């Protein structure tokens, strides 16, 4: 069983979003890190970049697979977790905690409606 955390938002491409006021923290789920396997590379997102909901923002790579990280919401990237860019295996070790990828200033909170909660995501990836 893969871990799913209550209180976060999820989308079908296996990213999670944690909302703190206007700021969204984005990472990949336990399911995603397991599917990818040992992560060896994470592209560095550009701070200040404006992204739309669903945009492929950065790519993440393991030995035998690669995936794009799609932003669950629109907004501006305000911070990047440089520690995981340096040591991407942190994502495998702690996908919901130290393994977060970047923070975004959320433009429109209405977009949250389209995302899943922990229960529906667990159901989706059952």
């Amino acid at each position, binding site marked *: 069983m893969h871990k799913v955390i209550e209180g976060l938002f999820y989308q079908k491409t296996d990213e999670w979003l944690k909302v703190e006021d206007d700021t969204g923290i984005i990472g990949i789920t336990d399911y995603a890190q397991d599917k990818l396997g*040992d992560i*060896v*590379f994470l592209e560095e997102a550009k701070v200040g970049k404006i992204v739309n909901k669903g945009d492929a923002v950065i790519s993440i790579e393991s*030995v*035998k697979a690669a995936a794009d990280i799609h932003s669950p919401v629109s907004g501006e990237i305000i911070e990047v977790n440089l520690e995981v860019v340096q040591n991407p295996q942190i994502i495998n070790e702690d996908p919901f905690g130290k393994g977060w990828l970047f923070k975004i200033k959320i433009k429109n909170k209405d977009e949250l409606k389209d995302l899943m909660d922990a229960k529906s995501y667990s159901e989706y990836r059952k």
Partner: protein
Amino acid sequence: MKLLNELSKRGKNKFDIEDDINSEIEMLDDKYLRDDVNIPDVSEIELIRHFISLSKDNYGVDNGFYPLGSCTMKYNPKINEDIAKREELKYFHPLTSIEYSQGLLKIMWEIEEFLKSLTGMDAFTLQPAAGAHGEYTGLRIMWEYFNEKGEKRNKVILPDSSHGTNPASSSMLGLDVIEIESKEGMVDPEKLIEVVDENTFALMLTNPNTLGFFEKDILKISKILKSKGALLYYDGANLNGFVGIARPGDMGFDAVHLNLHKTFSTPHGGGGPGSGPVGVKEFLKDYLPYPVIENSDDFYYFSKPAKSIGKVRSFFGNFSVILKAYLYIKELGFEGLKEVSQIAVLNANYIKEKLKKYYPSQFDRLVKHECILSGKIYKEYGVKTLDIAKRIMDYGFHPPTIYFPHIVDEALMIEPTETENKETLDNFIEAMIKISDEIKNNPEIVKNAPITTKIQRPDELRANKELKVKW
């Protein structure tokens, strides 16, 4: 095994060459000159032993059964190698005046005729260096055709079982890729109708496809595309499945590439060189890359087609590879080539019938040159298809292609080719059955395979992290 730089010691190499110029020559300004050349310095005997040892650590068709799916690892006739390495060719410069290269041009002209006949296409270029290069060239020709007509189409449709080169080639042209879901392992005309529109550039199709199935609705598929003015591209990687039996040109394909290093027996050389000629229908002929070979009254020469896309490489093609394929076709003739696909298909179906109960996939139907099995029922023993592949090595065979196509879980893609005899197939089948017993009775043996190879289960994670790509 030591690396060449570990064998190196300055002064070991005694290579020499005569200098017959006695005059004083002005020297190049120092600022352009390098201080030293820092490459391995070893003696000739060490070098020979080094490479012979390396060759012993490698497995080819000459060593044994190599059923790598979609790769057509058939026997590479030695006579063709001999002829392609002849002294006359060694120093045949591509810019030699054509008066002196009439024989070579004739070979190129003739093989184009053979390929036209075998595929039902109207014109060929021999320039592409490989299958993927052929794909690019074929799509580029189509792009020029639409561009000329003033049509801006940008959607390439691919079945979900397609080779990775198909979407990659499309991207190189800036085209968008749409994947459609297969039905029973084949293109579903109903689904296709839904996505084909005025913006559709082409459908790229491998036939037989990567599951080894003949696309039974090919004529319907072709009609659907044509009704919207879109084109049909043939990825010829699997032509060994019906060469001499049927022709892509008669199925509605507008452009095709062939892999001479698959169907036409030229060796793969550890990854290359290959050759990927492209054939087109009459309406695309004027767009072929230049030069094309013409023949008038048995005089052969180069020319440039009216609307040529330009050049796609240097010179005219991988000539010595083309030559080997030419020889192969001349050795076999029509009946011989037909027998190639008959026996290749017989072999693939024989393996499938004997092994389907041990490695069932979701499909069981008549296959062409290759068959798909699956290791998914062994997941419950904690055994992955990768483990099965590694265990096959312990039985002395090269493993099949694994984990492809993606639509089959834990896929094993087996292409025996026509040059393998029944005994070899039976030995392979027996080994596969033994492995299935091992999984059930003692899965650790399989999980720990291989045990007979010199190196075992390299650490790929470390290779990706450290990225040590030179000594």
